[in-house]
């Protein structure tokens, strides 16, 4: 019988499964702060792994030399010929690599790790070395992220079977949880040798695929990893074939943490999507007999709607007469938090896909440079135009040649470094942010709003010398939008431009938004990170073509807002209406904006809000901006 899935129990189980098949399962993303819980889990993993299997810890900022391998500088200098040094991934072949502070790992490092996980080997083409070293490893990401978006790169998460969160289980991890399977080295060793012979019946493949789909998991790796997890479960329990219980456990451990949709509970009626899917799966089965349990049968439809989470026992007990996919799905469902949708989708935007694109890919907001920023590596190059010499890399380039270039023996040892050895440092720096203000300058409140915007701009500019940011201002009134202040970082110029702004007239909201989008796109292509701030009361009454048609004006504004959201720019919508209402809030949803009702906005609080909006923007990139494919 399946034990109650409690966090610590599952964590223990995960450690055992990874020890059984590290490279097949990819590994674990372990979300937990540094502390006794994590240490206990790691100790469990160490105990479960065979004594000979290496367990290596890697800091998140390890360079290519350490990770993949390269030229061993001291050894090469000593013997005068190139000596290769294995990286930590190759050294950990057959074992597990722990990546510390995985939430901070750079996308480039993540891609290297992903490459090794996929290939099971390190292919090294560095420093004159061409090596292929076996590296069948499992990876444990030690994720200490606190905020929701502080996560390890998705490229890695996708490849790891288990995503375990120990934060909720603090302090409860004393003693084995009830029903925890034995995870001692002997059991694991037996399971390891049994794994290759474990049979998986075709129906389990179908059930896990269907469950993955019902949970809204797009990646094809998830069902494959779940299948391997089910096989490892069977091996751990000493079975030669996967059972429904194993598949349910695999769904709980592998699929549930990846869910993006909360599936409907197993239904008593026939209109449920899972029931619609089940016959589809059956068409694919070779054995027509198997399609029987998928048919809605009043006799077997218990009312699981009311079944509280955390009781998959009932699922296992009724395994004989319920469709397999339901059992599997129920197991995954049981551990989903009830508010899973609230986690995954921003409230109030039902049609919007999970905003995953915004929380990944920190690459876009950063630029490479030879002059300034954080050093990220070295490249061959000339020492001019402010380039800086990378001493160690230069020595490394020169090291293998010493014998060849060398002075006659007996002379004082001196390094012969030539121009072709020079390596210069490459830097990366954050790109500057362009804050675009689109201000509604219509009607009676125009003067007041413009004054607020002007004040906020001046405050931001006063700070921007340090932060290398720029500001632009668009005002929309009457028939169209005007760029009043072209992107600038100069406070004096801005003050002059902002001195006498006209106000009054209709509200061409669509024109204002479009003008802001064009400016933002131009900035993005120049390598800047645009942040849009829209100040309006949301009452559009002038359409795109300049006609005063309120209905069309609002439709145009919504269309313009959707285009901005599609481009993926960070937007702050400040509602300046005396009584903020639903209409402007809806515009904010269409814009994908942070919404801020600020009827009495003063310059200081406005500039503060804009800076807060710019912060996440600098850490992400517009996913669809200015891209045609």
């Amino acid at each position: 019988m399946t034990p109650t899935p409690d966090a610590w129990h599952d964590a223990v189980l995960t450690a055992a499964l990874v020890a059984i098949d590290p490279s097949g399962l990819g590994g674990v993303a372990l979300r937990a702060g540094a502390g006794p819980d994590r240490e206990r889990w790691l100790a469990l993993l160490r105990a479960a792994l065979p004594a000979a299997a290496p367990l290596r810890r890697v800091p998140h900022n390890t360079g290519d030399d350490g990770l993949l391998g390269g030229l061993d500088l001291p050894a090469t200098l000593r013997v005068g010929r190139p000596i290769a040094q294995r990286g930590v991934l190759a050294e950990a072949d057959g074992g597990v690599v722990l990546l510390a502070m995985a939430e901070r790992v750079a996308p480039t490092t993540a891609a290297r790790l992903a490459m090794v996980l996929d290939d099971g080997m390190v292919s090294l083409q560095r420093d004159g070395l061409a090596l292929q070293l076996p590296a069948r490893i499992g990876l444990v990401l030690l994720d200490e992220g606190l905020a929701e978006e502080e996560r390890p790169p998705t490229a890695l998460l996708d490849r790891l079977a288990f995503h375990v969160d120990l934060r909720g289980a603090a302090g409860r991890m004393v003693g084995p949880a009830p029903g925890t399977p034995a995870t001692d080295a002997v059991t694991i060793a037996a399971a390891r040798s049994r794994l290759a012979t474990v049979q998986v019946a075709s129906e389990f493949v179908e059930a896990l695929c269907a469950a993955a789909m019902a949970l809204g998991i797009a990646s094809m790796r998830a069902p494959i990893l779940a299948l391997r997890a089910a096989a490892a479960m069977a091996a751990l329990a000493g079975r030669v074939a996967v059972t429904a219980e194993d598949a349910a456990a695999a769904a709980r451990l592998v699929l549930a943490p990846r869910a993006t949709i909360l599936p409907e509970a197993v239904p008593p009626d026939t209109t449920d999507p899972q029931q619609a899917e089940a016959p589809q799966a059956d068409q694919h089965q070779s054995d027509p007999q198997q399609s029987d349990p998928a048919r809605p049968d009043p006799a077997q439809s218990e009312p699981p709607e009311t079944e509280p989470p955390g009781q998959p026992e009932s699922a296992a007990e009724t395994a004989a007469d319920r469709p397999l996919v339901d059992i599997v799905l129920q197991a995954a469902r049981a551990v989903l938090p009830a508010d899973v949708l609230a986690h995954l989708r921003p409230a109030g935007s039902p049609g919007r896909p999970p905003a995953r694109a915004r929380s990944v890919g920190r690459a876009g907001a950063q630029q490479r440079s030879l002059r300034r920023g954080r050093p990220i590596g070295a490249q061959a190059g000339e020492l001019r135009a402010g380039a800086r010499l990378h001493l160690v890399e230069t020595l490394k380039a020169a090291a293998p040649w010493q014998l060849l270039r060398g002075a006659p023996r007996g002379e004082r040892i001196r390094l012969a470094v030539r121009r072709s050895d020079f390596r210069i440092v490459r830097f990366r720096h954050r790109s500057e942010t362009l804050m675009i203000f689109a201000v509604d300058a219509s009607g009676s409140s125009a003067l007041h709003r413009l004054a607020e915007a002007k004040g906020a701009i001046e405050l931001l500019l006063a700070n921007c010398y340090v932060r290398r940011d720029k500001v632009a201002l668009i005002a929309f009134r009457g028939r169209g939008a005007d760029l009043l202040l072209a992107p600038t970082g100069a406070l004096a110029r801005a003050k002059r431009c902002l001195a006498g702004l006209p106000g009054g007239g209709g509200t061409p909201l669509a024109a204002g938004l479009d003008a802001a989008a064009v400016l933002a796109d131009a900035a993005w292509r120049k390598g800047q990170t645009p942040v849009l701030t829209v100040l309006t009361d949301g009452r559009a009454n002038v359409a795109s073509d300049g006609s005063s048609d309120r209905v069309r004006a609002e439709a145009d504004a919504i269309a313009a807002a959707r285009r901005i959201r599609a481009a993926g720019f960070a937007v702050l919508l400040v509602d300046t209406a005396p009584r903020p209402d639903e209409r402007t809030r809806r515009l904010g949803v269409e814009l994908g904006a942070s919404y801020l009702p600020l009827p009495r906005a003063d310059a200081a609080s406005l500039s503060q809000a804009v800076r807060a909006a710019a912060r996440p923007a600098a850490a992400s990139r517009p996913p669809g901006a200015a891209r045609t494919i």
Partner: protein
Amino acid sequence: MNVTATARPVFPFSAIVGQDETRLALLIAAVDPSIGGVLIFGDRGTGKSTAVRGLAALLPRMRTIQGCRYGCDPTTPSAWCTDCRACYATTPPRTCLTAVPVVDLPLGATEDRVVGALDLEQALAHGVKAFEPGLLARANRGFLYIDEVNLLDDHLIDLLLDVAASSENVVEREGLSVRHPARFVLIGSGNPEEGELRPQLLDRFGLAVEVATPTDLPTRIEVVRRRDAFERDPAAFEAAWKAPADRLRRKIVAARARIADVAVPDTALERAATLCIRLGTDGLRGELTLIRAARATAALDGDASVGDAHLRRVAPAALRHRLRRNPLDEASGSTRVARAVEDLFAA
């Protein structure tokens, strides 16, 4: 200094489920290498790398000059490397059959391994300045595959673009001056969420393919089932898929032989030009690629001339990455091409 681990067996190309556009694009590149490379962009876990690695096992072997480190083609002396020119100026070269190279450019590769450098062992042991060819030399007449192409270092990308444009690799280092042919089909794959490609690099790829995760259950089940069968017994799986692989290989060979005879009627040229004008693609590269890809498709299908059906099939891949950016149009390149194709061919 070459240590090779036993490479993992390769998932057979013909056993890949779905991914029709990717497979067609790779086959087109195999039939007509002058197409200019294939870019595969798509979601995680869609088997982008699987398709490329599978292609390597599928390609028919090619005839090379025996002993040539660059795999020179005995039939085209104009493209020979300096060694072959010197050796076989008067006597015809001995030839042999070798596998078409599909070379991986791993992330973290350094420049000297990509372009080649002085062979240290040779230099130290015998005091000879010999050139040790890099990955570009190995990829000559074959494919150079870059996974996560959007994460490759900028200076390496610049170098690759330069070589790909000139079909020649020039190395000047350590008193060594070597130039050798480096004609290869560049295949890049990546996830757009990881970072963007520079427009210069984008334009260099002849075909751009978008891969999406299959969304229907039977397809997904089949993907997982085949993957599972492959992992359990790679050898048996490969044997089971040998017949389709052989068939596909014969198809490529036949298409290569036929492609020169495939007619491109004026109507097809006109269609292609109209499509490009309507989409406002930059330059003539789009039309040229579109026609070439359609011709290769016709050759693969065994058709005598290029028709509307061929153009329709390859238009998205040939054009979607060449559209002018329009920040106010939220439709992706694919949608815009599909729309234009529908308009044109419906009329």
